[in-house]
């Protein structure tokens, strides 16, 4: 069992409240996933810059010299903003690949959680409300956010095993369920040069969607393809720079509720996750159909 929340804002006036609303949604899903939590927040882009979210088990040792070391390694300015065990590095977009390579080769104890123009990813082991406070989710702003509370069934309770998983620029996925063909799929994706950080089944699903989108499919098309290629139980909520998608497997035993108003589209594993959203009493509320792709793009 896991809990998922997602909020895709349509009305700009609500963007300053993205973090606050998501934090409340996440807090309602603690009992669905008390062992770890995480969230991806799509904030404001900075022209010509990319963001890389990194994590360290020993941030006091790893983070102080990191920006200077990377600046030196890639020959361009790198800024670092630390939040507890995570830090967001801002680098010139053209140097983002070089920065990621420099982190991997020169700083093995620093893990890359995700990168892109707008995405920031934070995840840790712990009770979801504590994780949310640890990174001050309530004060984050942006256009859309996806959160997850994890009750691990399939692989270890670790920071890297927490969701969301990000396997491509500005992409992330959260999963409630368990896959049964992820080992095979992982082998196939590995042949195509996709690398994996964990043994987690959900990471394979994220990588699969990235692989499909790299082939030129949009998010909706990639999700539709996943119905043919993924075997198991899943409710996925996925984010891209401009998009927000939901899909459930054909059996659809993992719960899902959605709400839409003029101001937002929201997802919750249960209706409880949605009750504090503005205007929920007048929202269109529905249960997403099995094997049906839902996605929104701005």
């Amino acid at each position: 069992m896991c809990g998922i929340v997602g909020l895709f804002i349509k009305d700009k006036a609500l963007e300053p409240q993205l973090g606050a609303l998501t934090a409340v949604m996440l807090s309602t899903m603690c009992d669905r996933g008390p062992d770890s939590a995480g969230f991806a927040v799509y904030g404001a882009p900075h022209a010509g810059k990319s963001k890389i979210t990194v994590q360290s088990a020993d941030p006091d040792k790893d983070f102080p010299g990191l920006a200077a070391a990377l600046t030196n390694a890639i020959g361009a300015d790198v800024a670092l903003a630390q939040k507890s065990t995570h830090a967001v590095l801002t680098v010139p977009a053209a140097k983002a690949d070089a920065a990621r390579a420099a982190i991997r080769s020169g700083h093995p104890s620093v893990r890359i959680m995700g990168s892109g123009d707008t995405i920031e990813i934070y995840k840790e082991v712990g009770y979801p409300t504590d994780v949310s406070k640890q990174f001050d989710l309530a004060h984050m702003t942006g256009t859309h956010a996806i959160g997850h509370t994890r009750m691990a069934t399939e692989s270890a309770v670790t920071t890297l095993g927490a969701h969301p998983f990000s396997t491509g620029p500005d992409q992330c996925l959260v999963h409630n369920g368990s896959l049964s063909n992820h080992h095979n799929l992982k082998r196939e994706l590995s042949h195509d040069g996709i690398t994996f950080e964990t043994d987690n089944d959900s990471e394979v699903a994220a990588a699969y969607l990235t692989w499909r989108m790299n082939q030129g499919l949009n998010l909706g098309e990639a999700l539709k393809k996943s119905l043919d290629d993924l075997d198991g139980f899943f409710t996925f909520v996925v984010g891209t720079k401009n998009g927000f998608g939901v899909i459930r497997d054909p059996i659809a035993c993992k719960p899902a509720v959605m709400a839409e108003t003029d101001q937002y589209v929201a997802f919750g594993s249960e209706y409880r996750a949605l009750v504090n959203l503005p205007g929920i009493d007048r929202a269109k509320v529905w249960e997403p159909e099995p094997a049906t792709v839902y996605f929104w793009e701005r």
Partner: protein
Amino acid sequence: MRTIDLSKATLRDLNQDLHRQAEGTNEVEWEVVNPRGHHAVAVGVDAPININIKGSVGYYCAGMNKKANITVHGSAGPGVAENMMSGCVTIKGDASQYAGATGRGGLLVIEGNASSRCGISMKGIDIVVRGNIGHMSAFMAQSGHLVVLGDAGDALGDSIYEAKLFVRGNVKSLGADCIEKEMRPEHHEALAALLAKAGISGVKTSEFKRYGSARKLYTFNIDNADAY
């Protein structure tokens, strides 16, 4: 009338209060406000009382209900009226998966749609859905009636025993051993009575098709003895 506000009272307070009621109680009218998707609202009631829940509820609302009339003025999460024994549960909105699962008696009315596995393993409950039902509904349904005014999803009545299914709209597909059956006069009569009980008028029983068990799956066939 007793009003319980779930933004102030705990769920346990509510359910314990309801469990204190028995046959002959004077507190017949109950209202629950601010349910806000709570799980297990009004579960295990065993008294002829009326409970109006003003909003949407989460998992397992009205489970194991005996004798009470429970109305949800909103939508219900998974497992509404699970294992109901008697009484009546009405959902004004939609119901999530496995509504009325394993129900042994009473009437469950869903005025919106019900999602997958509606009436799974039903054992005597009557379920009337004004809208559509999802896939795998009435799976292993043993007895009782499932009436659907809209459409049914895939694999309706898979591995069904002796429950009777009436569907007015399209059935996407039938499950193993579930077949369409003739509507005889007694079926029209039973269906008309159920529609009336659910407060539905203006719908003719001739608009429905009946589905039930082909009785090839759950009955032992002597010709198959060699297979064992």
